[in-house]
Every structure is written in C-alpha cells, then in structure tokens.
C-alpha cells in the first residue's frame, strides 16, 4: 500500500506537469483531440497507480508521448489551416436569418431540442431572433442576434 501511496503522489505530480505542458485551456475550449488526450492521460495514469506489478514507466512513457504529440499537433494546426481543418473540422452554420438548416442539424446529429437548449443558454428563446447561429468545432454554439433584438 505504501508503494501505491508513493506512486499516486508521483503520478499526480507527473500528470499535473503534463497538463501544464499542454497549456491552459478550459474544457469547453479544448479541441476534440485535446479533450481525448486529457481523458486518456488520466486513464493511463490510473493503471500503474493501482497495479504495483506493472512498472510505473509503463504509465509515464505513454503520457509523455501523448503530451508531446499533442503539443506538436497543436503547433502544426496553428501553422497549417488545412491540418487544422483535418483535425478539428469546420464550424457549421445551423441558423441563417432565423431559419434552421435541417441538413446541417442532421449532419451534426443534433435535434431541435438540443439546439433550443443551446440557444436558451445564450438567452435566446426564438430562432427567429437569430441572424446567424454557428456550431463551433468544440461543440459550442455562437450566435449573432438580429439588429432589432440586440437592444
């Protein structure tokens, strides 16, 4: 148990360092790959924490590699729009001049109820009040209200 205690402390410090290297972002602002890597890192760290028969390095190496790859990928995404599009996709217009684009919704596998919920979170209760509604690559909805609604 003492080994588990020591490993937990070490791995906690290590994962904190790894997340620090990846950079500061809120979960809602993470790209898909960053979010996936954050989840995987925490899962990988848990394995040698609980299983002392497994060497600790079997957790450290994949975490280091994932963090390094994530940083390199994010730098490449900054430099290359094509690569950014490949990894993150494009934002999609779901509402245009108050009208909901059903094709866009089905492409995103979002129901009307989901869309209404996202709009309500932005204090919009009618799609007719929206000039443009854009589903961002991180799953959030950005809206531009019609001029008369902005007052």
């Amino acid at each position, binding site marked *: 148990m003492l080994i588990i205690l020591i490993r937990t402390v070490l791995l906690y410090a290590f994962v904190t360092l790894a997340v620090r*290297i990846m*950079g500061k972002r809120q979960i809602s602002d993470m790209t898909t790959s960053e979010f996936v890597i954050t989840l995987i890192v925490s899962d990988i760290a848990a394995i040698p924490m609980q299983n*002392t*028969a*497994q*060497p*600790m*390095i*079997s957790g450290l*190496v994949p975490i*280091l*590699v994932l*963090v*390094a*790859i*994530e*940083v*390199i990928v994010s*730098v490449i995404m900054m430099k290359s729009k094509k690569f950014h599009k490949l990894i993150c996709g494009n934002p999609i217009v779901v509402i245009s001049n108050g009208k909901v684009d059903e094709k866009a919704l089905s492409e995103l596998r979002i129901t009307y109820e989901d869309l209404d919920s996202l709009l309500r979170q932005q204090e919009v209760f009618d799609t007719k009040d929206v000039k443009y509604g854009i589903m961002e690559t991180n799953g959030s909805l950005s809206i531009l209200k019609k001029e008369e609604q902005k007052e």
Partner: protein
Amino acid sequence: MKRLWIAILLLIIVGAITVSEYIYVTSSVQKHIYALDEIDKKISQNDREDAYDMLCRLENRFEDTDRVFNAFLLHSDIDNISGNIAMLKEYSKSTNNAQFLALSAKTKLQLLSLSKSEKPLIDNIL
C-alpha cells in the same frame, strides 16, 4: 514555440530510454540464456558442483539485472524466472537430469519471451 521544443525534447528522451531499455533487455537475456546453456552442458556431463556454482553466479547476475528489469517489465514475469533459477539450484543437486533440463528449457523460453515481447514487431504492436 518553447512548448514545441519541450515536446520534441520529451520525445527524444523517451525514445532514448526505450531504445536503451530494449538493447539492455535483449543483451542481458542473451547472456542469461548462454549461461543456462553452459550449465545444461555441465549437468549433462554430471558435473553438478560446477553447475551449482554457475547457477549461484547466474542467480546473483539476475538479481543485479532484476532491478532494471523490474523498472521496465512486468514484475510477475521477472519473479517467475527468479523462482525458476532458485529451483534449478536445488534440482542441480539431484540425479534427475531430465527434470533439471526441462525446467532449464522452460526458463530459457521465459527469458526469450522477455526480449521477444520488447521487439517492435507487428504482432507485439497489435
């Protein structure tokens, strides 16, 4: 950009550690297997005293490599091999060569699987 250099440095360090570990495990395993082959010859010639001394030396050498192995490989695999070497020491005192040679063959296969499992082959990756 600083993070990029840190990321590249991390990859280089991890690459160096994993390559060094692979080389160390492979070469240590080869030495241990060679030692077991020599011990098998001694047992086949009924030279049990020499075989026992060589097994004691092998046990000490394996304990030295044990620490590094335990840092990189599954502890249960290493413990099994240590246990087998301890059993071989006792079997070397008996006149049953077949028993000794059977366990020695098993131990060699276990050692070989340590180095095989570290090779970056398609079957291992998948």
